[in-house]
């Protein structure tokens, strides 16, 4: 294999313009091979457009993009040989059955008829779709469609798999199944470029994340780096008695010198631990704040100190409330 590179994907100043809309507006990405890389952003941020350019479906209007060192325009055919795309909408033929879809694609990937049938049957079995193999895909549930779609993408184990919003519209159970499948695929060395609007999903699967909004990357790094860039953790406290909450709010605000949020749950509150005005670590600060609560006679049932959630990171970065929910 020629053109191997430590990066599965490298883009420089990648641009795609639709009319007056700069859907992708100067994106620089470096996706290390063998990892799951998350492209996180709200609807219309330009995630899918970026993926389509990397998968050779759209021509960039500016900049360049390479997949394993191969230019996506000049060497499109080589790139196609190494990637698979699972689109936002199931990329299988809804009129055909599960088996027919997989056999069709296996044949197009060069498998002989018997090999195509064997591989399809094995994949359907591993994906828990053996019983639905002879049903038309249009009669599949949302979760089953995603599964057949991913199965179609790994008929030949790809070096790079694009997963464009793989769990949008799925119930939690199906979502977990898709995640398990993704983890199994990554464990075998395939690089995954995942786009998602769910912070939870990026947090669960990706090792590095680029936050993208209005066609631009607004933050990039490991999950830890991104969270640290917001510069705080938070302490979640659950009280025994809801009536004590206003008092607890004052105590915490005083001890931590930070804003305290009242959670929808009437006994819960969350306070930011930002380390301002003290050289104590976050955990010491939190411990001190809890001690103050005890001294004030407030009963704490349960508490937890966490890193900021990606939600908080995202909101801090985009300054657009509720855009991901």
């Amino acid at each position, binding site marked *: 294999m020629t053109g191997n590179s430590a990066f599965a994907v490298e883009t420089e100043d990648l641009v795609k313009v639709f009319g007056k809309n700069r859907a992708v507006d100067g994106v620089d990405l470096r996706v290390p091979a063998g990892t799951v890389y998350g492209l996180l952003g709200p609807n219309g941020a330009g995630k899918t457009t970026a993926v*389509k350019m990397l998968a050779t479906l759209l021509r960039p209007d500016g900049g360049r993009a390479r997949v394993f060192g191969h230019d996506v325009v000049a060497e499109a055919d080589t790139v196609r040989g190494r990637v698979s795309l699972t689109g936002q909408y199931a990329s299988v*033929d809804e009129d055909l059955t599960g088996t027919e879809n997989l056999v069709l*694609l296996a044949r197009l990937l060069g498998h002989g008829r018997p090999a195509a049938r064997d591989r399809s049957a094995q994949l359907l079995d591993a994906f828990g779709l053996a019983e639905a193999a002879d049903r038309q895909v249009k009669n599949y*549930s*949302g*979760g089953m469609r995603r599964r057949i779609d991913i199965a179609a993408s790994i008929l030949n*184990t790809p070096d790079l798999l694009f997963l464009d919003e793989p769990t949008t519209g799925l119930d939690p159970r199906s979502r977990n199944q898709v995640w398990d499948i993704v983890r199994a695929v990554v*464990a075998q060395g*395939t690089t995954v470029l995942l786009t998602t609007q769910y912070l939870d999903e990026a947090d669960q699967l990706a090792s590095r994340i680029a936050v993208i909004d209005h066609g631009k990357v607004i933050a990039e790094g490991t999950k830890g780096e991104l969270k640290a860039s917001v510069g705080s953790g938070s302490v*979640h406290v659950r009280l025994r008695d809801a009536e004590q909450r206003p008092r607890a709010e004052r105590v915490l605000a005083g001890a931590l010198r930070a804003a305290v949020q009242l959670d929808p749950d009437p006994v819960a509150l969350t306070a930011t631990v930002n380390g301002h005005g003290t050289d104590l670590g976050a955990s010491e600060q939190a411990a001190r704040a809890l001690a103050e609560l005890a001294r004030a006679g407030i009963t704490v049932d349960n508490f937890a100190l966490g890193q900021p959630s990606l939600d908080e990171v995202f909101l801090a970065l985009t300054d657009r409330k509720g855009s991901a929910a």
Partner: protein
Amino acid sequence: MSIGTSGDTETAAVPATTATATGAELAEPRADELAALLVGQERPPRPGALSASFTFGWRAMLKIKHVPEQLFDVTAFPIMMVLMYTYLFGGALAGSVSAYIQFLLPGILVMSVVMITMYTGVSVNTDIEKGVFDRFRTLPIWRPAPMVGYLLGDVVRYLIASAVMLSVGLLIGYRPDGGIVGVLLGVALLLVFSFSFSWIWTMFGLLLRSEKSVMGVSMMVIFPLTFLSNVFVDPKTMPGWLQAFVNNSPVTHLATAVRELMAGNWPAADIAWSLGWSVVFVAVFGAVTMRLYNRK
């Protein structure tokens, strides 16, 4: 910076639970089995252009299998065409139905099949919007294969239409002097021409935005092209300017070639014209189609 960690994900957005059945009756995916399928797998060599095209042709056959209603336009429609025009014009134009059918059948066959080709554009247009096309376009295969596959599938439809019309014709008195060989040669020429002509529709299918606009444009092209020909009557009675058009229309050349082949003659010039037009259609509209396909 953490002692107990939790709350990391609990505030994160949960995807909308809009999916219908979860497939609860189905087995869970098995990660271990999946892992075994992914390792040490060798990639087979890429399929050749012909093999990929035929695989897409097989896809078209599978679609017919699952949605047999789509054969309506290659069965009922051609029967209607033969019966309608034979009995409508037969007495007036040729004195009798049996006399007219000898002239009309090859022509109406050409006209019907050429008309049926326009459905190609509609199916390309509806298909291209679906996710599966994105997958086809990311496959490392010969680029025109999906389009050629459509047309190969359509050739089967044209073959069915031809068989149906010839059977009806034979039932109501058509007796081709060219025998089986002449009829088969005529049908073969018709299929080659239709395959080539269909690239106009793949082009429109990719170019236009909706199924309706594809249909509208197709009608605008197909009606003048098929009616302004020598399918129904000899062009000698037409005004001079119309004769000029009709005598040079590809459909006229094709209709004449098919009619003569089925009558047992060898119309070399008209065969050459028909094949020449076929080459032009593929060269021009095939090229435009592929350009649109790659840029879509």
